[in-house]
């Protein structure tokens, strides 16, 4: 088995070299195709979400969307999705900006017909955009949907697929779109653009990730975190790993060797935030607090330098800070970020 995998790897490597050779001179990477993109969500009521670009040392490039496009992003950035040369900046203020992954020049947008937009997936030259839909009088979201746009560079919405309340992150398995909602998991059939079924989930679903070839849905409640392994042929929950960890937030990132870093918050009255390290393979918490702070708002594990990047929102009073930790939680350095840093893309 091991040999097979090694051979595959070698084959892939050779193929890659061969491919490069055949394509003539290598195209240099664009400015934003290396380093770290810091997603700064922005402050509520200020629409000052932006992307920062960090390339090591003290080199931080601020507000790259505005710098390249000469206009403010003017939204709160909920998610950033890359797909084949296009980067989608998903604003929960109801738009998706499409930029060139290499240099962030604006390619288009979806700016009409969205409400509270959360995330995006690409399937067969179409965009699928999860959106909470408008609030009702009691601030519930009964009319949530997945908006479909038939052009990879944005434009008008061709249809909306009704889904369960408050869809967030999504994952594609074949022609099925898995949608993590506030309370459950929707399976959308993209051949027919209809909601196929809804799977009840223990805990509040937050995000999908893949570990050792398996697709997991991370969920949590006040006392526990849950890793639901999804059966990708019938879309049921194959098994669930439950780990006791109090105050886990929706922010987590997969490190090495099945280690997962989760942001926790004690809430009232101490408001202590922490980075917890748990092991999905050992089914336990390795250390509930490898780092403590306040205002911890996002986390990402950088596989290039094996560092943990933790975003501190500095109470939203001004711009935030990124704290770089080693795998045992010791602070390596800090990087100035924008308003409400919340996530990272490592290149």
């Amino acid at each position, binding site marked *: 088995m091991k040999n097979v995998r090694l051979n595959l790897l070698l084959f892939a490597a050779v193929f890659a070299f061969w491919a490069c050779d055949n394509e003539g001179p290598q195209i240099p990477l664009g400015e934003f195709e290396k380093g770290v993109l810091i997603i700064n969500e922005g402050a509520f009521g200020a629409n000052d979400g932006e992307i920062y670009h960090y390339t090591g040392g003290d080199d931080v490039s601020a507000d790259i969307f505005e710098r390249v496009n000469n206009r403010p*992003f003017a939204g709160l950035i909920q998610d950033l999705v890359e797909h084949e040369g296009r980067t989608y900046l998903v604003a929960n203020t109801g738009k998706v900006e499409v930029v060139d992954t290499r240099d962030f020049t604006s390619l288009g947008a979806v700016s009409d017909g969205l409400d509270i937009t959360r995330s995006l997936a690409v399937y067969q030259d179409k965009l699928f955009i999860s959106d909470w839909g408008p609030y009702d009088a009691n601030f519930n979201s009964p009319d949530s949907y997945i908006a479909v746009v038939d052009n990879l560079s944005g434009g008008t919405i061709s249809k909306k697929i009704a889904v369960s309340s408050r869809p967030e992150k999504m994952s594609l398995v074949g022609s099925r779109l898995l949608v993590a909602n506030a309370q459950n998991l929707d399976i959308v059939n993209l051949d027919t653009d209809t909601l196929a079924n809804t799977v009840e989930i223990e805990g509040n679903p937050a995000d999908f990730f893949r570990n050792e070839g398996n697709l997991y849905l991370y969920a949590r409640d006040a006392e526990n975190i849950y890793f639901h392994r999804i059966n990708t042929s019938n879309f049921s929950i194959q098994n669930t790993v439950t780990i006791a960890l109090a105050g886990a937030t929706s922010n987590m990132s997969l490190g090495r060797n099945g280690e997962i870093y989760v942001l926790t918050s004690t809430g009232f009255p101490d*408001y202590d935030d922490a980075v917890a390290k748990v092991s999905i393979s050992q089914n336990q918490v390795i250390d509930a607090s490898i780092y403590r702070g306040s205002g911890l708002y996002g986390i990402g594990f950088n596989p290039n330098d094996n560092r943990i990047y933790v975003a501190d929102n*500095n*109470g939203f009073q*001004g711009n935030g800070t990124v704290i770089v930790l080693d795998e045992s939680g010791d602070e390596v350095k800090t990087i100035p970020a924008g*308003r409400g840093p919340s996530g990272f893309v490592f290149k």
Partner: protein
Amino acid sequence: MYIFALASLVQSSWAFDIGPDQGRRDTLSAIGDTLDLKAVEVFTVPVEKYAYGQSLIQVSERDLERFQGQAFTEYLQKQTGLFLRQHGPGMLASLTMRGTSAGHNAVFWNGLPINSPSLGQTDFSILPVGGFDRAEILLGSGGALFGTDAIGGSVHLHTRLKFNQGFQAQVQSNVGSFGLWNQSVQAGFSAEKWSSRTQVYRNFSRNDFPFRNLSKFGTPVERHEHGTVRQYGFVQDLAWRPTDRSQLSTSIWYNDSDREIIPLIGSNTRDQQQDRNLRWVMDYFYFGRKNTLNLKGGLVSDELVFNVGSVNKTRQYFLSGDVEWDILPNIQAKSGIRQTFIQGNLSTYEAEESRTELYHSSNFSFRNNLLVSLNLRQLIYDGNFAPFTPSLGAEWEFFQDQKQSMGLKTMLARSFKVPTLNDRFWVPGGNPELLPEESYSAELGLVHEWKKGNLSVNQSLTYFQMWVDNWIIWLPRGNFWSPENIRSVNNSGLEYNLNAQVRLSSVKLDFSGNYAFNKAINQTDIDGNDRSFGKQLPYTPVHKAQGQVGASKDIWSAFINHQWVGERFVATDNIASVAAYSLWDTGIRMEFPERFIVKGQAGFQVNNLLNTEYQILRLRTMPGRNYQLNITIRL
């Protein structure tokens, strides 16, 4: 014969020539020859009476004339050195005075504090010009004189009623760009012993002004589709003088405002806000030979409905009594007590609070050129003692001759703000343990008046320093936000004010100018990564300048007004900022000629003459060039 004091805009009054027993003269009445000698204004206590050493901005009825039906915001923004954080035309506007926050100024209507007890501040956009006749603004700490909130200053709105006027009626219309249509009708009758006036108004603006949508690909110019403002209200004033020694007066003001909230650029919100504000006040005065008794009762009822579902109601009941007496010919004093009862029925909590305040004020005059005010106040809220607040102010006219006079004024004061109901009780996050915010301040000013022939100049320069501590800020804590007494701020600044008039044969020229320099420097970092220490507070311009030139001849008058507001930082770390802007307005006005069928006047004005694209707050749109026509007819 009407004298058109068009640009007698913002006048600091420095009345060194009168003793404390007379109070300070309203500069307006000096205009003189239009006033009926038999007219007696309904007695009110001048707000500045015990405020020697403080800077005063007086806003007269004439100053407000061309702002009829508009938010008081517009007047303050265009005609003073004050800055309001304005979210759009007709939208939320909060005042910052001397670099303090929106809740750090107290607002009064006919002596009744009208700051919302839940929000701790006033939205100046729902104080339409027309709901009051004139205003005074006292800059600097007024906690000892006015109670909670007056850390940066205080704003006083008044209705003005007269006896002996017979029947009077007035109709005002103001129409303008973007569907603006303000209409008010006023009628009153007064005799020797009583006076009554009723006013109803309706203000409307479609507010569909074009703006460049910076959030969209290609930044297209679009029109706002969600910004309509509808407002109506009425004011009733009554006064009765049963004897020569007593007076009973009452006023009631109801204002109903229904607004579509203009979204931030890049947002698609369609928020709707309704505000219903009812204010009622009743004053009884007894004028003894050496003392004056004042009993005051009042009610302030506010209802704010946001997006239908979120209903926030507060009600405040006031009862106060004070006695003012002449201790010696050169010493006058006032002592009193005020009881406040507050009920809050907010969307997430209910709360009640009672407050008791004891206050004392004294004025001393020495050799007629040195005037001193000493004020003391202790407020107790629900058994908690707010900081004891004394203030000491003085004005000294050290030079005077036939042509000019020069004086110094100074004040030392402590002020405070009781934490708002929301700060303490909001669910989730409200923090019942909060302490009152408090401040110390000191100021020194130089006043100069100069007259030569047809030219008169009045100017003042004030330097102030203020230290505010236990400043409350809301911080994100876990899943919600919670307020804490975290911040301390050092404020300092300069205020310069100039008024000049000159008469050249039949033409009268007026010039007025203001410059405000405000440093509001944060002294606290909330944690190790915060970069706020030593930085200017957000949306507090370091510089603001304003100037107006007016000219009048016979029935005609014209003005050109300019304001310049310096860069404002978006957040406490002073990284992002909003660009400085400069705006010009101009207008012309005509008093109807004497042989004309009705009395009255008509004016036309152009706002934002150069069609400047600007933002007061980041991504909040403001209208380009727009026009207004207003007509007043008097019977």
